[in-house]
């Protein structure tokens, strides 16, 4: 299984996700510089977390205009799986690969802490190794994670099963208190219509080893192996 991780100026979780991918997939990913204009033959593209272009203008806005993203958009339209983590999710919305926008957290501050998110469906290439309804502990680390879309869009996303993960309490309830950043309907992760593109604000690559706070991120990568190799 061949994976590529895109490196933008200011990406800073590119190494973290490459380490997780290599450990779980058993193969090193290709690191793709943002100025590349074509993708090699791969099964999965990952847009990593970080502060591409320093989050200047808007998080993800400049990265979405980079040469590599034109190639990613073209291949995504043909069904190539694209996983955007944190800043990668922001880039996906800015690039129009996912609807809506990620705005400044409700509390206006950067937040890094472990939250709980609920897996909304196990019917996808990203979530098949989770149970639907499973609650996973996973860290967030962002200032702009408040998901926004208008109500009609949100209704459509729900109806089409595009909500991948929601912020919930330990018992699995999507409460206001469990929503760390004010996201609409507690959305933490979102699919495109074909569920080949996933944007996820938390960092699954940081929880793949019990020594570093848990393994709840592993099934996401293991689902991909099952689906793509």
């Amino acid at each position, binding site marked *: 299984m061949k994976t590529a991780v895109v490196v933008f100026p*200011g990406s*800073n979780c590119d190494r973290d996700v490459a380490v997780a991918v290599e450990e779980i997939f058993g193969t090193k990913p290709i690191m793709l510089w943002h100025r590349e204009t074509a993708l090699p033959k791969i099964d999965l593209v990952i847009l990593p977390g970080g*502060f591409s272009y320093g*989050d200047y203008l808007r998080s993800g806005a400049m990265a979405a205009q980079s040469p590599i993203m034109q190639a990613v958009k073209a291949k995504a339209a043909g069904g190539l799986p694209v996983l955007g983590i944190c800043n990668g999710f922001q880039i996906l919305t800015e690039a129009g690969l996912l609807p809506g926008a990620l705005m400044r957290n409700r509390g206006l*501050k*950067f937040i*890094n802490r472990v939250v709980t998110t609920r897996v909304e469906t196990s019917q996808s290439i990203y979530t098949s190794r989770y149970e639907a309804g499973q609650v996973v502990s996973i860290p967030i680390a962002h200032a702009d994670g408040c998901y926004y879309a208008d109500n009609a869009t949100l209704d459509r996303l729900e109806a089409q099963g595009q909500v991948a993960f929601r912020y919930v309490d330990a018992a699995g309830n999507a409460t206001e208190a469990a929503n760390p950043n004010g996201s609409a309907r507690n959305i933490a992760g979102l699919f495109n219509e074909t569920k080949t593109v996933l944007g996820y604000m938390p960092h699954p690559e940081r929880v793949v080893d019990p*020594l570093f*706070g848990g393994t709840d991120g592993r099934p996401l990568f293991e689902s991909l192996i099952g689906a793509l190799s």
Partner: protein
Amino acid sequence: MTAVYTKEITAEIVAQHGLTSEEYARCCTIMGRAPNLTELGVFSVMWSEHCSYKSSKVHLKTLPITGPKVICGPGENAGVIDIGDGQTAIFKIESHNHPSFIEPYQGAATGVGGILRDVFTMGARPIANLNALRFGSPDHAKTRHLVAGVVSGIGGYGNCVGVPTVGGETEFHPSYNGNILVNAMTVGLADADKIFYSAAAGPGNPVIYVGAKTGRDGIHGATMASAEFDQDSEAKRPTVQVGDPFTEKLLIEACLELMAGDAIVAIQDMGAAGLTSSSVEMAGKGGLGIELDLSQVPVRETGMVPYEIMLSESQERMLMILKPGREPEAKRIFDKWELDFAVIGKVTETGHLVLKFKGETVADLPVGPLVTQAPEYKRPWEPTPPRPETVTVAAPANLAATLRKLIACPDIASKRWIWDQYDKTVMGDTIQQPGGDAALMRVHGTKKGLALVTDCTPRYCVADPKRGGAQAVAETWRNITATGATPIAITDNMNFGNPEKPLIMGQFVGCIEGMREACLALDYPVVSGNVSLYNETNGQAILPTPVIGGVGLIDDVAKAVDTRLKGPGHVLLLVGATKGHLGASLYLREIEGREEGAPPPVDLAAERRNGDFVRAQILAGRVSACHDVADGGVLVTLAEMAMSGRMGATLEPLPAGLPAHAFYFGEDQGRYILATSQADAVLGAAAAADVPIIRLGIAGGDTLTAPGLGAIPVRELIGLNEAWLPEYMAADD
């Protein structure tokens, strides 16, 4: 030669540059004439307290700086220690106190940026940031605003560059009302054969400027850091630099990419005093000259003159000397990262710093004398009058109420509100996060770990500077030991008031003496550091605050322990002698409102014996949790272990001979609380090693239960501990 004044360089101009008339006369002697304004600017920043260490050098020289694991001690951009397998840890702490008081966000942010550069300049990839913060009284009108700005600045910079902020300390005291302390520490990793130094070499080699463009920000920042504050200090806001962490991130990646090859001869970041100090230091260390054409320096404003270009403290800039002919490959890397790259001069044999601008020579200074003849003062000092060793402290009416109050007081209260704003886990190597004794970071790709900590107890230092200095060193040693790691070396950040006042200078001298004794006794040398003096506003000095940043190594991170109680039924043991010392304690200050008495004695032989014993027990796998006993004594330490583990504990009857409050809240040094399922083995080993140890009780349940205390639910303690800071920050002024 006496001072020569000219139309351009008047006595007033000299005074504005912070030089005394004697120091100015020395400039004239070195120059053989009156300097011009650009040259005077160079002298003023190089001879500022901040760059020259003129008041402190004579004392700093007494600190131990060598050891079997020290690869590079003080004098370079950062200290370097051997961590085995051809790997090194490179680290330093630095203050950004004055700028952070004036403009908290940018002051703190650029403090982080500056210390990161000190570390990656030497070839290390930064892997962790820590900090030590001191704010004024929570009741002071500016405190809330300063806390918010500083925390957000530290996070804003560190989060963006993608280096985790993993540890630190935050305390409050009225002596910092007008002078907060923001000390930032960075730790990096480099291979031992890939360390870069700053000494210029090879006459004819090109001098390269890389990074961000030069603007007018930060001019005279080093001079500002070398004077007292008064009510007009707000007007100094324009001298605070503005940080751009995005550019810093690109600079880290570009420098490390170039460093993977062999094109670099020497490299130095442009920190305080910018292009001036970087070029002077590189030439001075190499015993050579440097000629710069300032017209080639990338600038972001028009009309900048040589004086401004030389004194600008614009951030995210580096100066490098390359091997001849290697410019194209270096330029390709900086072009890739979209950073400025300019050949601005060359190394010469003249021993002079020669500055040209638009074809004319605008400054010509002999580097040797500029560096070696910098003023050095043996300032007069007076010792701090000793305080009584014993203080009379009546028993509190209600022990439970006392514990509740201590656990919620500003210095003990949880700092989660702060560290939730820091990315603590980026880079994927963070094992122990803030809230324990020391942060624990895996050395990427290995089983090894680095234990990292910052600490200082200023209330001890003001009461007895020597004891306080020794205690600060010993406490970091203890924090590292409590994880199972072996302490290796420290970096120090000496924050004091005006050294021209004998009592303040005496605090400095005393703290250094105590630190020296502790470093020697614990084989724990100083490898880097920073001095911040003149932390006074309107004559009111801060508490003496020699912050120590400690680094330790553990060979296998799987053997490390943390502070969390986790085994119900595990026996709690107290290691180290308990005498119930309440002088200068947190209890005395918070409960009785008294800042009195001598601090607890620091018995360095006992410290070492107890610590070596605890570490051996941890590495033998006999310990499930460990916490050193510090502020607030045994009961607060135990409450912290219970809160972090979300598990209660029950104490047995107290040993006879001490009042309960002295046993519970006394701050005798060299102590640890261990939880173990192998109590007999640990007790036996302690007896064999002649280590004082007593059985305290048993972990388990959901309350903290102790004689005289009753039972307090752990959940309630957590609530009290977590509530103070968020409530304080949410309140209106």
